[in-house]
């Protein structure tokens, strides 16, 4: 398996130093389909990326872009109507061996899940079984994936992870979910995902439906946990500012594909895909003077009836004739910086002006090379 980004420039102080250069997860040309009444829908249309150890990757996009489907597909948690007709998802275990997750059978999958990779689903409020105490849910979860642990070990481990998420085990273990606040439930879910010490943690909208102050606490907690425990994260969100907070790398998705991927500073300061710039311009910041924000005209396309060529072109201010001809591939912007890739025929024309923040004017940055 060739690592696509074998040597990468360290992306500044935001990323933890990477000692290993082999990715822990390698996705190539992944396609996910759903069977619906209206036909077969390709929710994910060929996605490729690498995830490195202890790295945090954000999948950002709006409703219908395929980010949640992609996250679920990585752990093979798609609903019955979903299937993966092509692509590979290669996982490198702690022993260095590489397996294709899509080829695992049920038993191997059961062992893989939670021990190697775990997921925190969207909607913390509803993910916990309302009639079981937290202690029992922890036990059930562990037993489902590791039949070898004794009860005492499970309980001990449960207490350990609860403490790691800054919860009091004595208060939380005997409680029912409805006795806990939204923030506490989210912490419990994060704790449960860490029970078997996975290498990869997938989080689907980890802070939606939480209050701002609780969100902040969870974000800080995730940072802390990642520093302490060293797992890699993939998190799915429609919230761009959250990606700025949590991610080392960001991939923006549109109509089932990654249309831009790069280091978080590249994406936020030098975006090169019109959709990414559109998203950034649509997010009002809090600090500074009155911002100018604009919306992206139009709406996300119907996956059953995609526009020809680039799916974004009907809404794109830079669209030209060749945009309807062929769908652009995700390609590096410059040979010297293979880490930043965008799927656009005209990245050289895309401009993004950083809004003045805290009164400091910033010169408009047109495309610089590399």
């Amino acid at each position: 398996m060739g690592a696509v980004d074998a040597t990468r420039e360290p992306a500044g102080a935001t990323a933890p130093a990477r000692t290993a250069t082999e990715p822990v997860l390698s996705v190539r040309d992944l396609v996910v389909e759903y069977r619906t009444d209206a036909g077969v829908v390709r929710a994910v249309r060929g996605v490729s990326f690498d995830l490195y150890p202890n790295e945090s990757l954000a999948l950002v996009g709006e409703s219908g872009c395929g980010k949640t489907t992609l996250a679920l597909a990585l752990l093979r948690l798609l609903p019955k109507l979903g299937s993966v007709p092509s692509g590979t998802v290669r996982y490198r275990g702690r022993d260095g061996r590489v397996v294709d997750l899509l080829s695992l059978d049920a038993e191997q999958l059961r062992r893989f899940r939670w021990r190697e990779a775990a997921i925190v689903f969207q909607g913390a409020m509803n993910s916990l079984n309302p009639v079981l105490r937290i202690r029992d849910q922890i036990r059930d979860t562990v037993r489902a994936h590791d039949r070898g642990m004794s009860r005492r070990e499970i309980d001990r481990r449960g207490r350990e992870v609860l403490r790691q998420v800054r919860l009091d085990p004595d208060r939380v273990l005997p409680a029912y979910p409805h006795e806990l606040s939204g923030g506490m439930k989210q912490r419990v879910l994060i704790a449960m995902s860490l029970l078997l010490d996975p290498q990869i943690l997938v989080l689907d909208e980890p802070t939606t439906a939480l209050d701002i102050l609780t969100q902040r606490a969870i974000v800080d907690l995730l940072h802390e946990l990642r520093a302490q425990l060293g797992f890699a994260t993939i998190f799915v969100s429609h919230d761009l500012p959250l990606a700025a907070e949590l991610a080392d790398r960001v991939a923006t998705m549109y109509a089932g594909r990654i249309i831009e991927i790069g280091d978080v500073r590249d994406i936020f300061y030098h975006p090169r895909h019109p959709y990414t710039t559109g998203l950034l311009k649509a997010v009002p910041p809090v600090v500074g003077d009155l911002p100018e924000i604009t919306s992206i005209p139009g709406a996300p396309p119907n996956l059953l009836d995609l526009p020809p060529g680039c799916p974004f072109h009907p809404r794109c201010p830079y669209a030209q004739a060749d945009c309807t001809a062929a769908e652009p591939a995700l390609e590096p912007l410059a040979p010297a910086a293979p880490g930043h890739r965008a799927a656009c025929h005209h990245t050289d024309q895309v401009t993004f002006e950083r809004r003045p923040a805290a009164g400091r004017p910033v010169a408009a940055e047109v495309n610089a090379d590399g």
Partner: protein
Amino acid sequence: MSQIVDTGVPLETPVPARPGAGPLRAFFRALLRSKAGFAGFLVVTAMVLVSLIGPLFTPDRLPTNLDAIYQPPSLAHPLGTDSEGRDIAIQMINGGRSVILVGLLAAAISTFVAVVFGSLAAYLGGWVDSLIVSVTDIVLTIPQIVLLAVLASLYKLDSPVLLAVLIGAFSWPFLLRSVRAQVFSLKEREYVEAARLLDLGTVRVVAREILPNMASFIVMNFVVTMTNAIYALVGLYFLGLAPLADDNWGVMLNVAYTRGAIFFKDSIFYILAPVIAISLLQLALVTMTRSLEEILNPRLREN
């Protein structure tokens, strides 16, 4: 570049179905989509037609023919004869009318009371709600069969209207509670609140915003009530609480049973025919209504 309206491309839907355009066609289209539903519809229609129109062609009263007691099915008597030599097939044709009509009437009375009072109770709340719920609870505790038995011993329950009213009087409490619960939940919906904010008026809000959203619920409940009413009616006859004057399916069941029709191979149809007819009717009603739900709820249509 083309002019993009800042609203987005409306989600295109393949079916342009609208309620105004040919409700009858929409009705049949929905029915055809579900084979079971269509089958149910055919069966119900057939049975209703036979029961309502059939008796016009058959003799009202069949003569007793002691020579032909309990004849097995034959060409002359497709279902055989009963204990008095009368043709069972003809009795079956005659026998459906009362049962269906009483069932319909009882269900109509019951549904009307339940919907009107249930929705008002839920929408208005307060003392209105408390009053209606109390009355409902009291009626719920009355055992239907016992009261009917007492009434039957005191009065002659021969009028179908009277039977319908009595049966309907016991069916509405359960239905009212369901309707009330539904209205409670719908009342909190944002679009109902928006209607109130636009000052559209209580009656209008209940009648046009809330109840139509419960249309399939009400229809299903109507049918269930009708099936229950039919069972109750048949039960009354079977237990002998209603006079055996009429020649309907319920009476047939009673007579067949008490005269030992189940013990003879040749006479088994006397009891089987009404049983099968009643069960078939109930089954067809329920399957038909489930596919009707599609029309009444546009959201299900497009998928």
